[in-house]
């Protein structure tokens, strides 16, 4: 058997590629329709590592950050939030409209990686990487985010809850580009919590994480959202558990919701956390998050 010994690099990539900055979606589409392997370049935090290691060998990198509208952020109290695909994650930390109306997104983004990474990482690129521990996915799933996608065949919308297919796969076709993400408007009395357990406290080596969101309508706590990370092959919502919490959940109902979650997750072993441990960790995080949300919403003035 013949294999190459590992050779990594200081400041060079093993194979060269062409960097192209398309002016329009149509121009980008022409490259995507061609024969040469193409990758879309967002922040590059993951893609450039994969090219370095030889896991990806694109001939062309299409820098989609400068496409028209890709850095737009628009909020409307009825229509919700539109985030261009190339908006960076740091904007989720700093943006006033995010802090005010999508506090869970702001709260989660603050914990995400480092300033260096957040300043580069784009919303479209991060969602499309589809990591099972993608922290951005958790609040986005809770806020019913919808990916708006362009291809030369037309436009389509993919709800984020249907976007992840598992094992880093997404519902995007090879010629499709996320143009923006849309989050519907949420009532004022919405509250969300993100909890994670990681080995290193900056977020590296995730054991499990959960985001929970609901809002209060009169005395009822409704529109429950539960998103879990690190415990399945994709970030996912657990709608049946959400349904179990509808109303003003009792302790038994919380237990039942947690039980449903346990039945619907499929954690795998990591070298730092066994599957059974990730399961147990998630259960604790999720219970705390649900109880926090209940407490916060009930303490709000009606």
């Amino acid at each position: 058997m013949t294999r190459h010994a590992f050779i990594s690099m200081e400041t060079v990539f093993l194979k060269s590629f062409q960097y192209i900055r398309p002016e329009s979606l149509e121009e980008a589409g022409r490259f995507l329709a061609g024969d040469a392997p193409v990758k879309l370049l967002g922040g590059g935090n993951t893609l450039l590592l994969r090219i370095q290691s030889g896991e990806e060998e694109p001939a062309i990198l299409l820098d989609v950050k400068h496409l028209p509208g890709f850095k737009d952020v628009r909020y409307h109290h009825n229509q919700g939030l539109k985030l261009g695909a190339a908006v960076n994650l740091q904007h989720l930390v700093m943006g006033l409209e995010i802090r005010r109306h999508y506090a869970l997104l702001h709260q989660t983004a603050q914990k995400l990686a480092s300033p260096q990474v957040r300043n580069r990482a784009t919303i479209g690129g991060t969602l499309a990487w589809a990591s099972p521990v993608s922290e951005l996915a958790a609040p986005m799933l809770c806020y019913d985010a919808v990916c708006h996608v362009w291809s030369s065949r037309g436009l389509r919308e993919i709800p984020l809850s249907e976007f992840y297919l598992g094992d880093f796969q997404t519902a995007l076709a090879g010629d499709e580009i996320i143009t923006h993400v849309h989050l519907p408007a949420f009532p004022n009395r919405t509250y969300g919590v993100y909890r994670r357990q990681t080995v290193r406290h900056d977020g590296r080596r995730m054991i499990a994480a959960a985001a929970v969101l609901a809002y209060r309508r009169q005395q009822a706590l409704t529109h429950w959202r539960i998103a879990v990370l690190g415990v399945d092959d994709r970030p996912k919502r657990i709608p049946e558990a959400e349904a179990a919490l509808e109303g003003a959940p009792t302790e038994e109902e919380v237990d039942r919701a947690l039980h449903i979650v346990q039945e619907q997750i499929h954690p795998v072993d990591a070298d730092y956390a066994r599957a059974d441990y990730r399961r147990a960790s998630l259960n604790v995080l999720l219970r705390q998050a649900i109880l926090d949300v209940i407490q916060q919403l009930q303490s709000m003035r009606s």
Partner: protein
Amino acid sequence: MVMRKTHVIGKPFPLVEAQKKLTGVSCYAGDERFGPELLHARILFSERGHARFRLRGVEAARKQEGVAALLTGRDLHTRLGAVIEDRELLAVDEVKYAGQPLAVVAAESTEAAMQALAMIQIEYERLPGVYDIESALAPNAPPVHPHMASYRGFDQVQAEPERNLAHQVAFQRGDVEKALASAAFVLDHTYTAAPLQHAPMETHGGVAQRQGKGGLIMWMHTQAPFLQREVIARALHMDPKDLRIITQCVGGSFGSKVFVSVEGLLAAIAREVDNRPVRLHLTREEEFRAVFMTPAMRARVTMGLDDQGHIVAIRAIYDWNVGASVDAFLMEMQRIALAGAGPYAIPNADIQVNAIYTHLLPAAPMRGLSIAQVHWAVEQHVDELAEMAGVSPLALRQRNLVKGGDQLFPNFVMHANGLESCVLETARAIDWQPDHQREASGAVASGKGLAMGWSPILVSPHCKSRATIQCDGENLCTVIVDGVDVGQGYYAFITQLISFELNFPIEWITVQPTDTGNYDSDWRAIYNNLLWSTGRALLQATAELKRQILSYVSEMWEEPMTNLDIVEGEVISYATKRRLSVLTLLQEGTGEGAPPVFRAAGVYEPEVKAESLDGALQSFATTGYAAEVAVNLETGDLTVLQLAGAADVGHAINPEGVKAQLKGGIIQGVSQTLLEEMRFKDGAPVTIDFMSYPIATTADMPQQIHPIVVEIPQSTGPYGARDLSNHVLVGASAAIGNAVYRATGVRIRELPITPQRIYDALQTQAKTVEGNC
């Protein structure tokens, strides 16, 4: 007597090179400016563990455009090592470990070098490998070095190559069996520690250039230039005098830039090239895969306690997985044996230290010198023993700790030391109390733990330290030493000492980068305990230099020397009140002829007779640690809330610098205890970047850090000072482990303390409790 106003000893003093480092001036690996003449070296490393191999395509690679030289083990078959040559510069036919160098190339660009190496195909034929201590010691295990007896330096080790014992050091006193038999409490446990990576932020690198026919200059970022010179020269069959190593800034070493790793390959390939400089700079992945690991430890500890609270006996067997080379670890083994009973005056002790060969990459000690791992075992064991006997862990420590005057080793009486102050002050800093157990709020419980530490300072024969000071009108005051500043403040200390002794303003003093061209020192020339040894050499040199200056002025002024002194950069006469700036003196002299040049040298040579590997015990550094942790009892999540670290430094010459070292030790202690573990698959590292091998970030820092300086003077040290930086984290892990126990009731005996391990132990505890009900 005039008081010296420029009293810089014991005052805050910044790092001498700080400004250079903070403005981006080039001084690290990869920064060297050599212009287009510069060639780039790359190394082909084995990605497999134990295997037979053949290289194909070597000749084609050699002829590849842009390639200046290429070497494989068939071109240059030579062995490498400081004491025992148990490594090959380049492997021939057999790979002993993943990460072993197979070929080295120098080319016009990094890309050309990489392309050449990519043309070489490696055919492996897998051989049975042993990767952990147990399998290496198993009957019929394949010996890693079956031909060890033929290696140079074999007579220096106590080895049994056929059963993978690379070296053994043992120490006994009293009768352990008898003492254990009559002890009131006997406790027996095994503790382990994972292999670590030194992971300096600057990866290994440097530049080498051939000089004339046989000579070579290397610009290196090493802690031990004299050692590297000797080892590289011997491997390449050069006269050490023909190899000159000039040191540059060292972007962190922690022990990884002492012994030779890839530097030998840089020298070898540069010798193949006609007088063009060749640069090597490893990638982070290469740094992880192919430089050094620290040895994994398995410690089996038995202690006996009598009913009066005296620890009467200890038996400890420390096994270390040193990978395929013991050379870099040899000198630490004696230290481990000396420290192996912990900082206690135990009358009966039986300590055995074994280095076990495996098919992993070579081991080298890390900051803490593996003494940190020893204390992980001993200092948790003492807490366990205290609990078994129902006494306070602090009281048990105080009753048994080693005191000045104790004679525990032949020819060595323990000096006065601050061990007790260290543990008491750290306990006070975090308000440790003997009686409180855990404090719980919801699922989160907190607890506090203590540990002490001691770490022997050894000096080997030939371990000379030299210092030369020259004062002249052009460069004012330049200093040449043989140690290297790796960020611990060595050059700052030198500057402070000279400024104090000669009463010169600090701006006059320049410490030259250490250059093996300056001295013909032995390879054992100092790279540890720098303050103590360089300090003593400098004191000689400054005394002589002062004498020269005063003697010169005495002749010039026709006054007796006894009237004269140097005060704030001026020579003054107490009798006639004449004064003369030293600056003027250096620039103008007497006004006739050339201005004077004063030059004085000092040598410190330890009085060690034995012509062996053994060093002589000089003193012990002592430390104390106290930790408060919070543990989530449901998830095993662990946070270090506070960590106090104390060290007895004898006399803090640069107090803020000492605290900076202590604070660094605290962070590294947290990192090693909670996060770090090198992992392998079939002998090849799978922890190859900072994602798979996380080190502490600001998010992992304890909320409160308490650095505590204890000063019990060391009579033999300069100004009573003792070295610190190497010993600074000894005790940190055990203090955290003891705190985790107090918070949770579960004892983690494996390093690192991961959330998974805490969770598992809590689960087992819960089951045991259920079972008892």
